[in-house]
């Protein structure tokens, strides 16, 4: 990877982290659990990495199998995370 490409990635990392800090520090404590399970689902974005890894048709089948394992786990993380967050948020009602 070239240095300039690396610098761009670091820019993205720093700015997105800063944005994350700004956004989350305003979340009221009432929503902390759904926030956590919702962000948990977002961390399943590694599914994108898993898809790419499962697709590699190299010499070794090991890399592909690792990718497929990652894919199953990340899918559980994504789907389960969003569904349970929705289930919780559905219950938050004001009368």
């Amino acid at each position: 990877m070239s240095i300039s490409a690396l610098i761009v990635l670091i820019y993205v990392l720093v700015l997105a982290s800063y944005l994350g800090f700004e956004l989350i520090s305003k979340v009221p404590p009432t929503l902390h659990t759904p926030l956590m399970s919702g962000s948990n689902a977002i961390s399943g974005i590694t599914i994108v990495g898993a898809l790419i890894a499962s697709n590699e048709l190299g010499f070794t089948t090991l890399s592909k199998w690792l990718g497929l394992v990652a894919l199953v786990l990340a899918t559980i993380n994504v789907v389960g995370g969003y569904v349970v967050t929705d289930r919780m948020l559905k219950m938050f009602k004001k009368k």
Partner: protein
Amino acid sequence: MNIGIEIAYLVASVLFIIGIKYLGKTKDARKGNVISAVGMFIAIVATLFMLDVLTLLEIGIAILVGTVFGIYYAQKVAMTKIPEMVALFNGFGGLASFAVGLSDYYLKSATNLASLDAVNLTSVLVSILIGGVTFTGSMVAYLKLDGKVSGQPITFKGQHLLNLVLLLAFVGASVLVFIDPSQVTFILVLVAISLLLGVLTVIPIGGADMPVVISLLNSYSGMAACATGFILNNNVLIVAGSLVGASGIILTQIMCKAMNRSLTNVLLGGFGQTVATGGADGPEIVVKEIGVEETAMLFDSASSVIVVPGYGMAVAQAQHVIRELMEQCEKRNINFRFAIHPVAGRMPGHMNVLLAEANISYDKLIEMDDINDDFSNTDLVFVVGANDVVNPAARTNPQSPIFGMPILNADKARTVIVSKRSMGKGYAGVENELFGYANCLMLFGDAKQTITKVVSEMKEMS
């Protein structure tokens, strides 16, 4: 670079940001979750477009298996078990990032060793370390929360030294990998160390510190995803990963502040043990018991009530009968509210979810700082399954291990009733001074059963 895919990733990143923004507002939170799910869907579809048709079958099966299991588990899980589920899913996310890192290493070391440059190798090592620690750490947290392993801190002599040695060994083996990237043995050593470190860092942490641990592991799972973004040179992974990483860190800080402890103090663990020797042995506390009928009468004659829920309420599944109690009180025009301590329960916001499940309006749930001044003009405080968060020793006794922790001023109310299974100590292993106070009455027994009886007494009165 395929421009279409890159644009799709950009859109997905923006949707994650908007989704998280909405998740912070009670009214829009559900919409926010949907927006972020749409972002995820776009990112997945875009990635599928650049795949070989050859592997589509395997990929389809993997996604199907994951989806079915994910939906099944998410629909079935009880609201009291949400901390367990979050811990488990954190672990899955960590393991996925770990596997992606390892997979990338295997592929490149077998096909194109030259492409394993310093940046790539570093990212692989970071994703193995953080992903591995997240995985085994979350599994231990899950087993502790689920009661399959004792929630007590597990400590042994030289524990911290061992962790330090392992960390140094990781650095050492990493250097060897840099020198000769083709040596798979070193990578396997690194894998073993990172998995072991996850177990060792979570076992010394006690059950009541779980809100901190879960928040921290949540943050790690984001950072692990971020590391895979560096491996694959992929921006959407980095954006989403760092949003989650930041969110977990903020929640960790909030939890630590609410316990008046530093993160180091929580992570080094063994809180219970140090207390046993350092705690002040005060005089034996003499408590006054109260029965179900008298409790009902006290509720009947009060004009304002504050309920302080704790983890014990979740264990007893008492949230639904507390709603019935609330209905009885509201019939009598009693001002009925809940005081929520930030670390009540086993994860941030745990009490709010349980009470929402019992159909209690969220504007009845008041945060500590907003309600603490109201206790002194409240007739009756009802403590259900909470202990340390209402122990006045945190304010008054500098000898106490929990001194300085922000607490709910329940003791300032005219009368306090504590629903408790038995006279056991709180998590911190300290006597609760409150129980001996003149205005405090103990209602012993299973919270669900005793409150059910109180409610039926109240129904008869009216």
